[in-house]
């Protein structure tokens, strides 16, 4: 158990790297920085592989339980403080461990986070080679790895929240990496603030769980949720899961909190690849999948998740159709694909959702890194209208990006085909007409995805060159090996990762008799006995197995062909529209309907709407709403009511002082002090007459008196 016993080292290694960068980074050579930070992540990856391999062996012998390594009790204790009465009347003790949990779900995340993270670290050594703040960048990246791995490996919601906030912080720091650019620091703020809204939901959800179930450990929560003592549709569990989903919406950029992710592209491209495509944004999916035992008890929440996911998918994809910034297309694509994942979770196909996270991590990271390589070659140009004809000039980037595009468009046998098809199939087979509608939305999204991805490929690589400056044209070059190597590795993964979840319907054609595909089987202990309960809301159905249709229906083959057809159609349409576009070309959507084009180009004016309603940066008529409206209102309240009260108090003090001064001047001083003085003066007038001021007169009077006395006594 060499690796498993030291599982805590996986997050700590990058934390160590980040700490070194924090304290000594400024003084280190770039090569040393690379060695430490990349080395830490490589070691973490090796540890992760070791842990997962050992866990798989250990789990076979231990009834497929999750492996827990609890270092110490971090919050609360057994000795009694932090005790409280849980909802059921049981005495609960609030406790959170500094504990790590490994099960198939966290294994998958662990592998692709460390794996993709490692590749992106290597890529960054090339991409950031000429940038300032090299050590700062790698310090943040390592800190991110630490936070993300804490999030994944935590054995309770509280520790997960620590990682959750940590990745949010790193996201903020890295989006604002070029902080001297106003747009970048604005985008960083936006990401942070929008995420806070989601985090508030996550926290509240956590409070509900702690209060209702009396524990925040996954094992306890899952055990209780599966114990059968809670009704399906329990209102408090519904509330808790909805709140958790609010958190997931923030982190995973779902409607209506997706607005930060496209702006997050202000960060360096490797960051977009690592944080805003492959890993961090899937944290919401992870959290919902991790809470699957609760979510299956709350069909309403599941429906919300599915609907929000599907709407986000098509909404973001439609915006992606017309964006011109290469990274923004990918950003909207990410939002859209995350929508797919939530659609899968919402229809109860947790394994399919996780599978899509897994494949998406590879091809989307590859797309972003490829885009970074393109931008690198184009000397910083991001606008696809000024690209074109790069296929021959940067062949490695071109080929790998083409593979990723084929993967995301859903063309077999690339990875995206298997995962996306699985999701669409699961949506279709959920009972109820509404789910067919979700399938239609998903299908339309798949068509759009193929279109905008091939639009990107045509505009960047295949169409005639529209590069504006000769200098840039001349400077186009393939990226260094440190950047192309990760591209190639990711391309290989994008090509083959899908086979891990090779659909059973196809496997049966070649003679397999397994119940489910390999990926789903591996995850089965985590999502134990949860079938897509979704449409079957009776309690007894929890233990149902796989769906009937999956084994028999020829519909699955039909849908598969349909989705390949959608991908091909998207490719064909993109090709017709963009094959030969020259400078100043007109978008086909613009040609068909300018208003629709303007709406899509302006992202449905959502940011503007938010400016009107939530931030209040824009006025609605004469009224300002939102945060700034609140600010103005409270400013008015402060200036008029609070300050008015202050001034009134001041005025009253002044009046009281006037009265007091009058009293002092006329009563105290007048009667009390000056009165006796006046009386004394009045009395002095007659006595003063006796004094005439000549000393010798006084002496004469004295003498006369003396003589008088003498005469009196002698002659009386």
């Amino acid at each position, binding site marked *: 158990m060499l690796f498993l016993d030291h599982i805590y080292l996986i997050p700590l290694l990058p934390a160590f790297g980040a700490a070194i960068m924090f304290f000594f980074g400024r003084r280190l050579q770039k090569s040393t920085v690379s060695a430490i930070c990349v080395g830490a992540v490589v070691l973490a990856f090796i540890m992760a592989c070791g842990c997962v391999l050992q866990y798989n062996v250990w789990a076979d012998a231990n009834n497929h339980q999750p492996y827990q390594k609890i270092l110490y009790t971090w919050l609360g204790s057994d000795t009694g403080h932090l005790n409280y009465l849980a909802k059921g009347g049981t005495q609960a003790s609030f406790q959170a461990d500094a504990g790590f949990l490994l099960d198939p779900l966290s294994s998958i995340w662990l592998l692709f986070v460390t794996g993709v993270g490692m590749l992106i670290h290597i890529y960054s050594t090339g991409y950031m080679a000429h940038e300032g703040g090299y050590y700062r960048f790698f310090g943040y990246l390592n800190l991110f790895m630490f936070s993300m791995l804490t999030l994944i490996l935590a054995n309770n919601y509280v520790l997960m929240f620590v990682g959750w906030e940590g990745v949010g912080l790193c996201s903020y720091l890295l989006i604002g990496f070029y902080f001297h650019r106003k747009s970048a620091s604005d985008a960083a703020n936006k990401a942070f603030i929008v995420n806070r809204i989601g985090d508030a939901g996550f926290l509240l959800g956590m409070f509900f769980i702690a209060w209702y179930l009396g524990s925040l450990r996954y094992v306890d929560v899952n055990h209780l949720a599966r114990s059968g003592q809670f009704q399906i549709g329990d209102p408090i569990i519904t509330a808790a899961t909805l709140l958790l989903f609010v958190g997931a919406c923030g982190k995973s950029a779902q409607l209506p909190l997706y607005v930060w992710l496209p702006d997050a592209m202000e960060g360096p491209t490797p960051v977009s690849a690592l944080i805003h495509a492959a890993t961090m944004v899937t944290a919401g999916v992870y959290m919902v999948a991790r809470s699957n035992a609760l979510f299956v008890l709350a069909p309403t929440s599941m429906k919300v998740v599915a609907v929000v996911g599907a709407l986000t998918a098509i909404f973001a994809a439609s915006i992606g159709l017309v964006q011109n910034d290469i990274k923004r297309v990918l950003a909207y694509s990410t939002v859209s694909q995350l929508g797919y994942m939530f659609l899968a979770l919402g229809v109860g196909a947790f394994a399919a959702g996780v599978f899509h996270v897994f494949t998406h991590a590879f091809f989307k990271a590859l797309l972003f890194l490829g885009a970074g390589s393109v931008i690198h070659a184009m000397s910083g140009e991001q606008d696809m209208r000024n690209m074109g004809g790069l296929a021959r000039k940067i062949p490695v980037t071109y080929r790998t990006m083409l593979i990723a595009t084929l993967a995301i468009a859903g063309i077999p046998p690339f990875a995206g085909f298997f995962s996306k098809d699985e999701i669409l199939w699961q949506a279709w087979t959920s009972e109820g007409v509404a789910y067919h509608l979700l399938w239609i939305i998903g299908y339309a999204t798949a068509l759009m995805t193929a279109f905008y991805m091939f639009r990107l490929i045509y505009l960047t690589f295949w169409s005639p060159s529209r590069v504006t400056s000769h200098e840039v044209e001349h400077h186009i070059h393939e990226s260094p090996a440190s950047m192309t190597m990760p591209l190639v590795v990711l391309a290989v993964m994008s090509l083959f990762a899908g086979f891990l979840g090779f659909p059973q319907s196809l496997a049966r054609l070649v003679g397999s008799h397994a119940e489910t595909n390999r990926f789903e089987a591996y995850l089965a202990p985590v999502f134990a006995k949860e079938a897509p309960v979704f449409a079957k809301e009776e309690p007894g159905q929890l233990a149902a197995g796989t769906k009937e249709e999956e084994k028999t229906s020829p519909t699955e083959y039909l849908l598969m062909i349909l989705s390949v057809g959608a991908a091909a159609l998207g490719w064909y349409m993109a090709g017709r529209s963009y094959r030969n576009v020259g400078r100043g070309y007109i978008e086909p959507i613009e040609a068909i309907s300018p208003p629709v084009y303007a709406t899509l180009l302006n992202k449905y004016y959502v940011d503007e709407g938010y400016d009107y309603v939530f931030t209040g940066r824009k006025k609605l008529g004469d009224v300002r709403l939102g945060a700034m409206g609140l600010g103005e209102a409270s400013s008015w309240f402060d200036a008029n009511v609070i300050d008015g009260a202050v001034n009134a108090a001041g005025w009253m003090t002044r009046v009281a002082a006037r009265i007091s001064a009058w009293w002092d001047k006329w009563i105290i001083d007048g009667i009390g002090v000056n009165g006796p003085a006046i009386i004394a003066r009045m009395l002095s007038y007659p006595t003063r007459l006796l004094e005439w*001021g*000549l*000393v*010798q007169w006084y002496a004469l009077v004295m*003498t006369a008196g003396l003589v008088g006395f003498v005469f009196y006594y002698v002659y009386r």
Partner: protein
Amino acid sequence: MLDISTLHYLVLGAALFLLGVIGVLTRRNVVIVLMSIELILNAVNLNLVAFSRYWQGIHGASALHGQVFAIFVITDAAAEAAVGLGILIAFFRNKETVNVDEVNLLKW
């Protein structure tokens, strides 16, 4: 030779006293007024000593009260002269005069 009796002393004392009083009442110069006050005091001293001598004739040599009292008066006179001259100098500095008729601040 006429015997000098107590009466003679008393007459001399009365004369000195009268001289002093006239001086105090009539002279404007403070210095002379002070000197006149000394005359008055010494007139008194003369009486005291004379009476002391007279009492010694009756009660014996130990009847020294009058003489002792005279010594007290001399001491007192010295102190008074010092204080009086001090006031005089302060007064002179302010008024540049030593005439008592010009000292008339204490009137209504």
